[in-house]
């Protein structure tokens, strides 16, 4: 089988210690846009379900891995329905998808977490890891041998072209985390901790339309917690397109959430993943829905907005036309489901 490259592992016992270790190792000065992904010397790992396979394929080759297994909370905390919920970044995807409060109030998240990969990987993979998931691409998620034969790509070797579109000025790797559109639709924020302290970031602000520098936070900043606002009045759902009933990353992921005020939509959010380098909160879809009765015309307008927002490239399974079309089908289905249930 493929072997892991040699590396050293640090296992800090708290988030504070992890932040300190990352500062001492100089993790924050790393810029994958300059070094390429394999050039990053210090990486964090939580569940490891994505990091380790990527290391075996030499997409990543850190000298030091900082394990967050002991540093991160795994708790899901929620009080009454009027208050929100917080999820420790170390909570496994299995535990998030099975949690009764998540299931009853944040259905889209429970569904999305339950649709990630396989049961075994959900038992190991964490919500924090999924939020920070590396972007994916058919030219990147390949072995060292394969990429040598191809001649490498921008994401590993910034001086080389993007193989997806050789004229592209940026890397076109795809945001592929299932939980992120669900969290966006639910209005999540994340807590980010570093040696300089702690701050709260709107989840939508965490991402950038760039397959290499896909996260806006520094590489010594640890996502420690995901916070969800009160869910009162909200209904949400998540739909995932993948080739098989298990195992696969999304090639379209769509989350929708609406809050009704009587027969009218008081607020709505529609979010996408796997159709661009960053997850997309489709504002135009929300606008089309707000104030409507969630009637077919409003749903159609929202679906059209989602269709327009999706900009898939030919670097995942499936085709561009299929994925774009499915975005609008999913938007319609998700919103009808929220209307009818």
């Amino acid at each position, binding site marked *: *089988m493929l072997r892991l490259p040699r590396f050293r592992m640090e296992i800090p016992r708290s988030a504070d210690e992890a932040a300190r270790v990352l500062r001492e190792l100089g993790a924050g000065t790393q810029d994958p846009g300059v070094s390429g992904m394999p050039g990053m010397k210090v990486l964090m790992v939580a569940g490891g379900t994505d990091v380790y396979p990527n290391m075996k394929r030499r997409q990543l080759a850190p000298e030091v891995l900082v394990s967050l297994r002991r540093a991160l909370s795994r708790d899901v905390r929620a009080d009454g329905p009027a208050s929100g919920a917080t999820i420790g970044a170390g909570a496994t995807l299995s535990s998030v998808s099975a949690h009764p409060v998540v299931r009853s109030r944040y259905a889209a998240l429970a569904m999305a977490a339950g649709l990630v990969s396989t049961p075994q990987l959900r038992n190991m993979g964490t919500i924090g890891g999924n939020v920070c998931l590396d972007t994916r691409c058919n030219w990147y998620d*390949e072995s060292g041998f*394969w990429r040598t034969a191809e001649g490498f790509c921008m994401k590993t070797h910034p001086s*080389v072209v993007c193989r997806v579109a*050789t004229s592209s000025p940026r890397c076109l790797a795809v945001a592929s985390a299932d939980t992120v559109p669900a969290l966006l639709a639910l209005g999540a924020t994340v807590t980010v901790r570093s040696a300089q302290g702690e701050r709260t970031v709107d989840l939508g602000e965490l991402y950038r339309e760039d397959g290499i520098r896909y996260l806006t936070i520094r590489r010594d900043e640890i996502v420690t917690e995901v916070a969800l606002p009160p869910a009162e009045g909200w209904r949400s759902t998540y739909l995932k397109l993948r080739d098989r009933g298990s195992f696969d990353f999304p090639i379209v992921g769509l989350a929708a959430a609406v809050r009704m005020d009587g027969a009218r939509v008081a607020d709505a959010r529609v979010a996408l993943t796997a159709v661009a380098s960053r997850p997309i909160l489709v504002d135009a879809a929300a606008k089309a829905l707000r104030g409507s009765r969630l009637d077919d015309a409003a749903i159609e307008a929202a679906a059209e907005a989602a269709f327009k927002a999706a900009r898939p490239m030919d670097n995942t399974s*499936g085709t561009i036309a*299929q994925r774009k*079309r499915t975005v609008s089908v999913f938007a319609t289905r998700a919103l009808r489901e929220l209307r009818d249930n």
Partner: protein
Amino acid sequence: MSEFSVVGKRLPKVNVWGHLTGTARYADDIQLPRMLYGRLLRSPHAHARIKRIDASRALAHDGVVAVCTGADMPERMGIMPSTQDEYALAVDKVRYIGDPVAAVAAVDEDTAYDALSLIDVEYEPLEPILTIEEALTREDVRIHEDSGRPANVFKDVHLEFGDVEGGFQTAHKVYDNWYFFEGTTHAPMETHSAVASYDGDGKLTLWTSTQVPHYLHRELEKVLGIPRSRIRVIATPNGGGFGGKSDPFSHEFAACLLSMRTKRPVKFTLDREEVFYAHRGRHPVLMHLRTGVSADGDITAVHFQSYLDGGAYASYGIATTYYTGALMTVTYKLPAYKFDGVRVYTNKPACGPKRGHGTTQPRFAFECQLDQIAEDLGLDPIAYRERILQPANSRTVNGLRITSMGLGQCLEEVKRSTRFPEKHGQLPRGKGIGVAGSAYISGAGLPIYWNEMPHSGASVKVDRGGGVTVYCGTSEIGQGSDNVLAVVAAEQLGVLTEDVHVVSGDTSLAPVDLGSYSSRVTFMAGNAVRQAAGRLRTLVVEAAAAKLGVPADRIALAQRRVYDLADPAKGMTFAEAAVLAESKNGTLVSVGSYKPPKDISGDYKGSGVGPTAAYSYQAAVAEVSVDLETGIVTVERITEAHDCGRALNPPAVEGQIEGAAYMGYGEAIAEEQVFRGGLHKKPSLLEYKLPTSMDTPEMKAIIVETIDPEGPFGAKEAGEGPLNPVIPAIANAVYDAIGVRFDETPITPAKVLDALQKNRSRVGPEGLSSQRDPKAAMRRLHATTDAREKKKVMS
């Protein structure tokens, strides 16, 4: 009550515990003292000349013990003696991305892995040939310079039987369609693995996950240059084969040579990506099928042309080419038949045999076209097929002998089980049902190298405690071949399968069997064991008859007892009878062998591929629903009936039907071994879309028994045939659901959606594309290189 005490009983397989719990000792489980770990260096070029290889830096690396290259094993090899075009490691040229170039043995896997980057290979890149069309026309680029055929043609065959021209002239209508079957790979759970150990006494042992220990034995002798008498090949239990472990492979030779050089055991275990490069899977085949039919649907003539994309080497390609034509005649009445087959070389991993070997692709084309013919005639597609069946005990137009023939019963069974006529053409849009029939061989009629010896040999020993040991060169690849041999021996000797030990796949311990390919083990090895055990049975019966004072023909054996049929209380245990027989006759060991009969084929060049002692038959019905908005095809249910002659062990037959149906389902819906510029697009189990347990449809397997006159207890094959009808059945069901004919595989959501949006009635090839711009591949290559260089300069 059954006349048998073991045959036909729903008993657990003899090796089931090891397979279920993982305690079976696979090749990679073998650990020997001082063992080294090997790894192959593979070509990053699709087509290139090797100008220089320098392994000195690797050899100097700490922990590296030995390195070898193609120059160390310059002898040509390959599974088919007539078309040997491979080397253990590339000599002079590499012909696909992943072609093995050198091998390293080191003290551990990490060191072997690291050492690969220290082997300096200088290549001169050559233009790659990547499509069938390029291969047919490019005289200027030759993948095998000395192939002796034009351009990159590996083999072309032309056969004609009956009055083809007349048949088309008298036809009421001629159907003329092109089809394309995409290449797929086997993806066995166990990746290929081999351990070689060369001892101080000059003897070499190779443990390897191979389906063909005997053929490998021959090639090792040839390539390594040591006599076969000093080589022992042990086929370890294969964690799945499906045809993918039926060739001699680079890592097997490299393990042997490096062990001979270092006098230490050497292990190679391929990683998953390497298995995609080793391949030998289903050929992509472009097909042109013309069928003439009379006004009431009788077939008047068929002309079938196949173009096989063979990849870089021969493998079984000569047989594959013939197989695309040979078995078209054994299902339905064909009075006249013409076949033209061409297999070409391309710069991609070599294709070879995958479950259904060469018959799966034409079967897809034929059964899809029959669906169309039935529709035009206004006939139910099952009723139409039943009307044109090839009869049992007949000869086909191409001279193949047919004995037992259960396709009619299979169609009847699936019709009854699914209530097909009540559904077909009558379901709401988006729901569909489709049917197809097919056939397969119970072992190839000829061995791959010409000889007059048995295809299968076995010996059976009875010990003094009543235990029975069967020795046979078959390879247990998870299909249950050990169990089949145990069932046959147990039935003959009146013991239970748990009393039988099977020693298989060992060239030193067991008589030769040609291997676990072409669905030959049940029929051929089963007959060999039946004969061997039958000879001991006679001795045991005679000894017991003498002791009991009754005539031998009144003696029966069952449930570990030997007794008087007229008075079952009168008898003895099998062990007691065995002691009597050994006292009288000496040691109880016997041999048996099997060779298919002679007169089962016509007499013409090319008649050697297609004949078998008995054909299996099968019919499948698929029920699908198509999501009209997303194009997703859900196969709700597959119902398949299979004529296996007699089920020696019904759960094993059902398991084979189900496994084959699932494999066919994956090929119909999702799987594709595809390339971009010679580089495999998806060499991983994440991107190569093998169905998961969440995807596979509900399955009903129905056993049809026709009791073949020559099979062991009437049995025929069950391992491959059941794959064949599933794919066209699904395509026909999709047509029933949405009115779109899929004349190509796989039927993906993207293609379905595209067809629905563009209101297409057909998705499939139009023919051989007019000769594409020959320099296109090179220009593409240059374009990306130029862009890369430009980018480098800019940054």
